[in-house]
């Protein structure tokens, strides 16, 4: 479904991604592990068209997307849920969700159906639909950010550190929701610092260090790897 071949990215004078190659099959839930500054967010921004790679190719469902703008990439079915629960704080919850369906503005009945599905997934969002997004708690904001990224009916969801700064109970709920979304047929690429949690729900994983993929394997292999344990799980 998604294939990155020797992707390089430079921001300013710094190489943030250096020769990353990875593949994700349809229906998979793959995690991307790495410390702060490893290049996870830059890689997600590159896949979603916010950063143009200086070298290499990115193909989604066989089509090259590395030269496309974010709007076209969203239309093709790739949705990014950025790090840090980024929302439009002055817009209501319902309008935030509708922003996620901006590329589907002509499909009114379909959008209304998706909105109902999101409300079923996160009932709290429906209860507070007219409330400004900036007034929500951290966990609710994350639910809204995930909900918004699902509004465009993506086939590939890029989740950038969804557990960052959240209480353990909320993290557990968010991870269960991500598993549910994946079971519903959406392919997920999940970036996480919380390696044990990410590996527990993923089928495969990659480890990113200084813009390079240094390790890859099944979730079980990575969970059993001594280096991963030492660097990310803390065992």
């Amino acid at each position, binding site marked *: 479904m998604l294939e990155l071949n020797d992707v390089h990215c430079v921001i300013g004078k710094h190489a943030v991604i250096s020769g990353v190659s990875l593949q994700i099959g349809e229906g998979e839930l793959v995690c991307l592990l790495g410390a702060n500054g490893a290049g996870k967010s830059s890689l997600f921004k590159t896949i*979603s*068209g*916010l950063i143009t790679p200086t070298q290499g190719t990115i193909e989604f469902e066989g089509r090259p997307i590395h030269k496309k*703008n*974010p*709007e076209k990439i*969203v*239309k093709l079915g790739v949705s*990014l849920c*950025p790090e840090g629960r*980024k*929302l*439009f*704080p*002055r*817009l209501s919850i319902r*309008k935030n969700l*509708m*922003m*996620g369906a*901006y*590329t589907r*503005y002509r499909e009114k009945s379909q959008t209304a159906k998706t909105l109902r599905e999101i409300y079923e997934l996160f009932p709290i969002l429906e209860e507070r639909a007219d409330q400004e997004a900036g007034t929500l708690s951290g966990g609710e904001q994350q639910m809204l950010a995930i909900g*918004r*990224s699902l509004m*465009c009916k993506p086939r590939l969801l890029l989740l950038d550190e969804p557990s960052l700064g959240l209480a353990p109970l909320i993290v557990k709920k968010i991870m269960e929701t991500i598993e549910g979304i994946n079971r519903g047929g959406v392919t997920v690429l999940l970036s996480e610092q919380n390696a044990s949690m990410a590996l527990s729900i993923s089928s495969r994983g990659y480890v990113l260090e200084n813009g390079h993929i240094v390790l890859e394997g099944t979730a079980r292999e990575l969970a059993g790897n001594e280096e991963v344990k030492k660097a990310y799980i803390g065992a």
Partner: protein
Amino acid sequence: MKKYGKWAFYLLLIVIVALIPLYLNRSKSGKYTIQVLTMAMIWAIATLSLNLILGYTGQASLAHGAFLGIGAYAFGIFVERVGINIWPALILASLITAFLGMLVGLPSLRTKGPYFAIVTLCFNVIVFKVFENWTWLSGGLRGQKVTMPSYLEARWARYYVVLGFLILAILIERQIVKSLLGSSFIAIRSNENLSEAVGINSFRTKLLSFTVSCFMVGLAGGLFAMEKGSLDYTITNYMYSFYLLIYLLIGGAATLAGPVVGTVGLYFLLDKIKGIGEWRYFIFGLILIVVIIYFPRGIVGGAKQFWEWAKKKYYRTGEVLE
């Protein structure tokens, strides 16, 4: 019920504003006040246009003074030199201003933040110099005469025309802001990168906002020419861009009532104290400083905040009492 109450209030307000000329038209000073109010409403339409691009979309245009002048001159030239009827001329003048706005927006909206303000200010200075020196276009010191049909000779008649356009401008802006497009304007103002990530083409959306905004300021320019009856190149002065900015900031950006309250209130006040000469601009500056420090969201934004606070306090008190 609450919704009907709101609309009833607006209707009452319109009726009151519509009745003002009937009262004022009896005296000479009253007739002058009608003229001041008409001009204030024209400036309010121009401030509403700036509100769309700056208040809602977050792009500080400092070229609206130039576009106001372009709209005014386009209207004057169509009516006086081409001989078109004033109503199609008004539409054409607005369309020409919108088209020029789009041409200016194409390169300038690729810049961000203060750079957009600088580029648009430069454009305003260029337009001012062009109108100052191209006398075949601006009429030089003689200016451009604009003859109105006989049914618009009475001040009160022009008052109602401008009032109608002001209501129309408010309704159009309201429809835009409440729509998905309006939400995308606010989204861009809030976080442009995030807007791109959700699939909003930020450049195209900003260009649309700027073009619509220029259409509105072009309309205000046409009405300005209609009210004044003659134009000179000073109408394109960049100081007007700053006046519009100040009216908006004082009234309250990103609110529908703010531009109208700020413009009409300040314009009226400045006219009332014009006897003190240049000192009135000192008062103008003082008001701006006080509003920016104590009401950063403007008079209307501040009033809204106070209302929310008072409501919360009232309900909390109610809970305690229960």
